[in-house]
């Protein structure tokens, strides 16, 4: 083997830690894709918004300075959620809802074109608007945590990533419970399974979609906020994560929230493990390869199911 056991454990733990945040952002995308069947190209840019929101809340305005360097970034990441939720809500209300939803689904094929253009347009606006507002210099949130590590044997665990991991898993669990155990969450899932039937059963599908969309971008933004303290970013960072998210969601099975979680986690592990055997630049290529393998070998994903009738 070209690498040692310690390297292996190091990569595995790093993969799991980063995978926790990936899992959270995948859930965000999974909620949107699962309920609306829209390919959202702007998802990565909402992640970017979450990063900048956390950044400014932590450092820029000093509002959270009194919470200290430890709790500050975490709280900031959480606050990024509602902020981006609100932006998502407005975008859905005025733009996205006009090309999605039960009414549009009726037109065979024609609906999908509009959706793709609109999310691409939103993506362009957010990226380039971000460039205007935030500037192009890469930034990051520096916390004492992200510069120190715990040692378990010879394996180093970055403290900042550990905290992000725990928070991400906790939030993911909360979202899962919300979707499976509350009335609103069940309504969202019903609208996802069959929007026509849900419509007839008195569920306001348009509203359900709006909630799903806003919730999805909000959750992904929190994941972005959590990542912001362990990596640098600029307004175009979102795209790197679009593939991570789609790979995770497809891996788990389109439409399955639990699947999105495990898919995201696995993608993190694959990405980090690949650095053991492949040059660093190719770690994203590994994701694509895994992604392609999944869709070829098991397109329904780990948790998904296929259903088609002739």
């Amino acid at each position, binding site marked *: 083997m070209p690498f040692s056991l310690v390297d292996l454990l190091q990569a595995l733990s790093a993969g799991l830690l980063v995978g926790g945040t990936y899992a959270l952002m995948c859930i965000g995308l999974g909620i949107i894709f699962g309920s609306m069947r829209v390919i959202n190209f702007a998802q990565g840019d909402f992640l970017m918004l979450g990063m900048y929101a956390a950044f400014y809340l932590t450092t820029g305005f000093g509002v959270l300075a009194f919470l200290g360097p430890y709790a500050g970034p975490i709280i900031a990441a959480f606050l990024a959620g509602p902020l981006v939720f609100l932006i998502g809500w407005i975008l859905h209300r005025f733009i996205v809802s006009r090309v999605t939803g039960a009414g549009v689904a009726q037109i065979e094929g024609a609906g999908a074109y509009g959706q793709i253009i609109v999310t691409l347009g939103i993506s*362009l606006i957010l990226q380039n608007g971000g460039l205007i507002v935030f500037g192009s210099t890469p930034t990051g949130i520096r916390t004492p945590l992200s510069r120190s590590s715990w040692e378990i044997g010879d394996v180093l665990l970055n403290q900042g990533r550990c905290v992000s991991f725990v928070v991400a898993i906790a939030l993911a669990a909360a979202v899962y419970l919300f979707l499976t155990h509350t009335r609103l969450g069940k309504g969202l899932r019903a609208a996802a399974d069959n929007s026509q039937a849900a419509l007839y059963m008195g569920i306001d599908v348009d509203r359900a979609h709006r909630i799903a969309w806003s919730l999805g971008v909000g959750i992904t933004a929190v994941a972005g906020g959590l990542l912001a303290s362990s990596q640098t970013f600029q307004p175009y960072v979102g795209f790197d994560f679009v593939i991570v998210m789609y790979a995770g969601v497809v891996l788990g099975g389109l439409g399955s929230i639990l699947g999105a979680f495990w898919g995201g986690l696995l993608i993190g592990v694959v990405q980090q493990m690949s650095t053991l055997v492949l040059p660093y630049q190719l770690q994203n290529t590994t994701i694509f390869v895994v992604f392609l393998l999944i869709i070829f070998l098991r397109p329904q994903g780990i948790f998904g199911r296929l259903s088609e009738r*002739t």
Partner: protein
Amino acid sequence: MRTRAEIKRQRWAIAGFALAVLLLSLMLKSAYYQLVLTQVLLWAVLSLAWNLLSGYGGYFSFGHAAFWGLGAYTVALGMIHFGLTPWLTIPLCALVGSAAGAIIGYPTFRLRGHYFALAMLAYPLAMLYVFEWLGYQELALPMQREAPAFYMQFADQRVYVALALGLLVLSLLISLRVENSRFGMALLAIKQNEPAAEAAGINTWRWKMLALMLSGALGAMAGGLYAVVLLVITPETVFGMLVSAQALILALFGGVGSLWGPVIGAMVLVPLAEGLNAELGDVLPGIQGVVYGIAIIAIILCAPEGVYWRVLDRLPRRKPAAPEQPARMPATIVPLPRERAGATGKDLLVLRGIGIAFGGLRALDGVDLIVPEGGLYGIIGPNGAGKTTLFNVINGFLTPDSGTVSFAGSALTGLLPNQVCRRGIGRTFQVVRAFARMTVLENVVVGAFVGTADDAVAARMALAALDRVGLGGRAEAVASGLTTRELRLMELARALVSQPRLILLDETLAGLGHDDLGGILDVVRQLRTDGTTVVIIEHTMQAMVQLVDHFTVLDHGRLIADGKPDDVVRDPRVIEAYLGKRWVEQVASRAN
């Protein structure tokens, strides 16, 4: 498909467009504007390439940057490492692009819908990282001062305009050709209902692969010329997401699945983006992206189907020109049904021990079935008995876990539906599978391609088939506007137009009122008279008893009775399966 006069008009339109671009290029003074014009033309080519596969065939590609980038790198690397001239490498790009299309298509066409689109997204991005890793971060084409023309390096930008225009005209002519041939019809049919296209004898795999390879070839050539024009390429600028996005944005903006849509999109959006970049790029970096984003959203909210289709809808409608071919072919021209042995009693279709399971559910379990040639054979059974599954096994949608299917003496097991159709088995579907946006005639023409290599003959056969089912008067109606009865008849015509020896009818009578039933029953009887063997599935017995001359009853995936209709309906097991025990008792008491 257009008439010949319309095709001619389109050719003139292309010529006029080319002339206008040349004139414009002569009038433009600044080299910068020439460059923008060149880019407009090249992006239009990429978008047309995208449109071939995704616009006509409906397989959405988010990854056309793969072809563009491979083309650009072929030209750049060829010149840097081997001193090859673009005059040679750009045609070579066509080979590279179509090879890439074949390699990508081979695994990827097993996917559909969102999965296909997402898989396509991954290819160019994976290539992007690979080319970066290989150390090709930035490639500059070396200036060739010795023989600039030989290396396609011109001081006068107008030469590039002419070259790009040549490529665009080529793409337009190819698209026009595809649109008006069975290639285009097959793609449209695939887009609207792939299983139906397959069952009607369209080799969907072949046409999809051809579309992707052609698309890849055009995209790679455009990418190659792009490298020559821009002189510097990076993985990000040729494999990046923006390239793939550009290809589809231009087509969606201009009008998907139309000849001129991608061109319109490129003419409007490319100069807009370039202009914004030049005017505002220094003052406020990023503003051009914002304005571009707002522009495409605004347009798509106003005209979701794209500019071309919206304008076309607004224009006063041209009266549909009288069809060139004599539209109402008298029935006598119909090639008479081949002389058949009639009810020879020879076994035409033989099923032995067919079994298939979906997960834990045994949908079919040891089914043996022998259909003699020339008969009208009925299969009945309650819902969920496995009737449609049986048809899907026969026509190749499903491969049985065990057992064999043979037809006219040769095995069918393992063949694709279109191959089964070619062997002479037509079918209809329980839920009508129409190509909703095509006319009735076009729907049937798709089915006729199996029977003839000549598209004009296919059209005549389709008209004849429509006359046979009594739908001749509705040939020009769009399928989505038909009644259930008309849809059933249209599907029937599509199944019989290729003159199959065996037709499988899946609940053709379902959902029809009493009055509508008669017409269809007549057509089915006529089929038998003409010598075609018919197997029909129903779950209502009544109509069937009068119609068929042999009955098979399926229940829970097993064959429970087989014989003459009168005998079968009296079989207590059948009555029990069908109507429950109480009926059996009732019948028994009545008999006494």
